[in-house]
C-alpha cells in the first residue's frame, strides 16, 4: 500500500461530494476549451475563406439577418428566382458569376439531409441565348475591366464538377444528378455513379466534393429547378452569391446592386468576416472570463469541501498520527488528493470541452473543429494549481490537529 492508495480509496468511499466540487473546475476548463476551440477554428476558417472563396457579395431577402456566411441560405426566407435573371441581364461591371441557391430539408434512407439547389452556368447560357443575347464566353457579367480569376479563366468545358467546392459554381448539372459533400457521402456510404432517392425521384451521384471543412461537406447539391419542382416551392431562391472581380471594378457594385434589386439586402463578405472576427475576439475574451469565474467558484467549493473533509476525518487523522504519521504525511494526504482532483478536473474538462466543440461546432456554426492539445496542458495545470491553493489551508489545519482527539469517544 502506498500513500496514493489511501488517497484513492478515500476518494471513492464517498465520491459524490468530491465530484460535485470537482464539477465547477471541470466546467471552467470545459467552457474555456470549447470556446477557444471554436473561436480558433472559426478564425482559421475565416482566413481560409478569404483566400479560397470568390463569392464576396450576397444578395438576400430583405428581412434576413446574416450571422454566418455559410448559413446564409439557411434562413428559410425566399425571393423570386427572377432576380437572378435581372442581375444577369443588367450586365454590371465587376460581376464575374452568379450563384443562386435554394436549400430544403430532405431525407435519404430516413437520414435527414440538406439539399441545396444550384444553377449550373449552362442555364445562363441557355437563357442568354433564348433572350437573344450572345454571351457564350462570359454568360453573366461583363468582361470590361475585370482581372482574370479562376472562374473567368476557365472556358467552362475543362472544369470538373468538384470545382464547385472552390469556385462555388459549376458548368453543367443534369436534372437528375446530385453532388455530395465529403462528409455526407461518407455517412451515406455513397460513391460516384450510385443512385440516391431524393423526394421520390432517383438521382445519380455525379461527384463527391473534396473536403472543405465547411457546412458544404454535409450537403447535397442538385439542380435548382429540380429542387424547386420536387419541394413545391415554386421559382424561388434563398440567396444569390455573387463573385465579384477585383475591387477596383467592384467599387460601385454594391450601389448598382441595390439600385437594381431594391427589395433585397446586399451584404459583402468583408462585412460578414469583420463581424465574425469581432464576435470571435469577444468570445475568446469571454471564455477567459468564464474560465476565471468558474475556477474561482471551483476553488471556493473545493476549499469548503476540503475543510468539511478535514473536520469529518479528525478521528482518522488522529489515528494516523497515533500510528506514527507526521505532519508531512497528513499534509501530503490532503494535497495529494487536491492534485488528483485538479488533474482529473482539467482532463475531464478538456475532454468535455473538446467533444462539445467538435460536435457542436459543425452543427451550430458550420465550422470543423480540430482539437487543441495545448489547452489540455493549460487546463490541467490551472485546475491543479487552483485545487492545491484551495486545499492549502485545509491541509494545514489537518496537519495541525491534536493527535489526542483519537481518545475522545465519539
Amino acid at each position: 500500500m502506498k500513500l496514493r492508495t489511501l488517497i484513492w480509496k478515500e476518494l471513492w468511499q464517498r465520491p459524490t461530494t468530491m465530484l460535485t466540487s470537482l464539477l465547477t473546475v471541470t466546467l471552467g476548463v470545459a467552457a474555456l476549451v470549447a470556446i477557444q476551440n471554436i473561436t480558433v477554428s472559426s478564425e482559421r476558417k475565416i482566413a481560409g475563406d478569404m483566400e479560397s472563396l470568390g463569392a464576396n457579395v450576397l444578395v438576400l431577402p430583405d428581412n434576413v439577418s446574416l450571422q454566418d456566411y455559410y448559413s446564409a441560405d439557411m434562413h428559410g426566407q425566399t425571393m423570386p428566382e427572377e432576380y437572378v435573371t435581372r442581375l444577369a441581364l443588367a450586365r454590371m461591371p465587376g460581376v464575374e458569376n452568379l450563384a443562386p441557391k435554394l436549400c430544403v430539408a430532405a431525407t435519404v434512407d430516413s437520414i435527414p439531409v440538406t439539399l441545396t439547389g444550384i444553377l449550373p452556368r449552362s442555364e445562363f447560357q441557355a437563357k442568354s441565348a433564348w433572350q437573344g443575347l450572345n454571351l457564350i464566353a462570359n454568360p453573366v457579367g461583363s468582361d470590361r475591366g475585370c482581372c482574370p480569376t479562376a472562374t473567368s479563366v476557365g472556358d467552362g468545358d475543362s472544369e470538373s464538377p468538384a470545382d464547385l467546392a472552390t469556385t462555388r459554381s459549376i458548368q453543367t448539372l443534369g436534372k437528375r444528378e446530385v453532388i455530395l459533400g465529403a462528409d455526407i457521402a461518407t455517412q451515406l456510404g455513397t460513391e460516384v455513379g450510385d443512385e440516391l432517392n431524393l423526394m421520390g425521384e432517383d438521382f445519380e451521384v455525379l461527384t463527391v466534393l473534396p473536403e472543405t471543412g465547411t457546412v458544404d461537406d454535409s450537403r447535397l447539391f442538385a439542380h435548382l429547378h429540380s429542387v424547386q419542382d420536387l419541394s413545391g416551392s415554386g421559382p424561388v431562391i434563398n440567396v444569390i452569391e455573387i463573385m465579384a472581380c477585383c475591387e477596383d471594378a467592384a467599387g460601385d457594385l454594391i450601389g448598382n446592386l441595390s439600385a437594381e434589386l431594391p427589395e433585397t439586402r446586399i451584404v459583402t463578405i468583408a462585412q460578414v468576416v469583420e463581424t465574425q472576427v469581432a464576435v470571435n475576439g469577444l468570445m475568446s475574451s469571454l471564455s477567459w472570463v468564464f474560465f476565471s469565474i468558474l475556477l474561482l467558484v471551483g476553488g471556493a467549493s473545493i476549499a469548503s469541501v476540503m475543510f468539511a473533509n478535514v473536520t469529518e476525518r479528525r478521528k482518522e487523522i488522529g489515528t494516523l498520527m497515533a500510528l506514527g504519521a507526521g505532519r508531512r504525511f497528513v499534509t501530503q494526504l490532503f494535497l495529494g488528493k487536491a492534485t488528483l482532483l485538479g488533474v482529473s478536473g482539467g482532463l475531464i474538462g478538456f475532454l468535455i470541452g473538446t467533444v462539445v466543440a467538435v460536435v457542436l461546432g459543425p452543427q451550430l456554426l458550420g465550422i470543423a473543429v480540430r482539437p487543441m492539445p495545448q489547452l489540455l496542458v493549460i487546463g490541467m495545470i490551472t485546475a491543479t494549481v487552483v485545487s492545491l491553493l484551495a486545499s492549502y489551508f485545509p491541509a494545514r489545519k489537518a496537519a495541525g490537529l491534536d493527535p489526542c482527539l483519537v481518545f475522545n469517544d465519539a
Partner: protein
Amino acid sequence: MYQLKEVTKTYTRRGETVTALDHSNLAIADNDFVAIVGPSGSGKTTMLSVLGGMMAPTSGQVILDGQSVYDLSIEERTAVRGEKIGFVFQTFNLIPYLSACENVQVPLLLSGKTPDEQRKRALEMLDRVGLSDRVDHKPNELSQGQQQRVAMARTLANDPQIILADEPTGNLDSETRQQVMEYLTEFHQDGRTIVMVTHDSDSAAYAKRTIRLVDGVALDVKDARAA
C-alpha cells in the same frame, strides 16, 4: 523503563482551569502489565496520552528508555511513537474505507516498509488474531469483536515494545471482552509492556499491577509483584 516524573497537566477552557494530572509520579518496569482504574474524569485518558507522546504535559517529564519524550522534536517524537508504542482504542479507530489487511498495513506504510513487506507482515498479524479468513473485509463487514482484533493486529504490526490501551473492552460484550484480554495477556507474555485504562474490574484483574487515579494523582492499589 517508562516513567512519569512530577507530571502535571492542566486544561484551560473558557477561563476555567482543570487539573487533570497533579504532580503524578509513576514508574513502569519493562514487560509490566498495568491497569489504570478510576472514576470518569479522573485523568486516565490524559495520563495515557501523555505517556504515548501525544500530548505534552504542562510540567514534568516522560522518560522512555532514558530519553525525555517531550524534549524531542515533533518529528522525532512521532517516529518514536511509530516504532515503540502501539495503541488500542476503545472505538477501534479502524479506517472505514480500508480492508482489514490494509488497516494493519497503515503503521507499516508509515514506518516506510515496501508494499510487499507490508502485506506479508499484515497477513501474519491477522493470522495471529485468527482473522485469516477476513483479510479483505471492510470494518463495517466485521463484528465488533473482529474489528477490535483487527485493531490489535494493527497495534502489533510494527512490533512495539509498549502497548497503550484506552478502555479496549469498553464497547464489547463479555465474551469478546474476555477474548481481547486474552490477546493482551498473550502480547504481555511476548515480552511487551502493557498499560491499559479500564473501569471494568474483571479486565483489571488480568493486569499484574493496578493504579488508581484519584483527582489526578496516581496511587498503587494492587501490585502482583509485591504480593
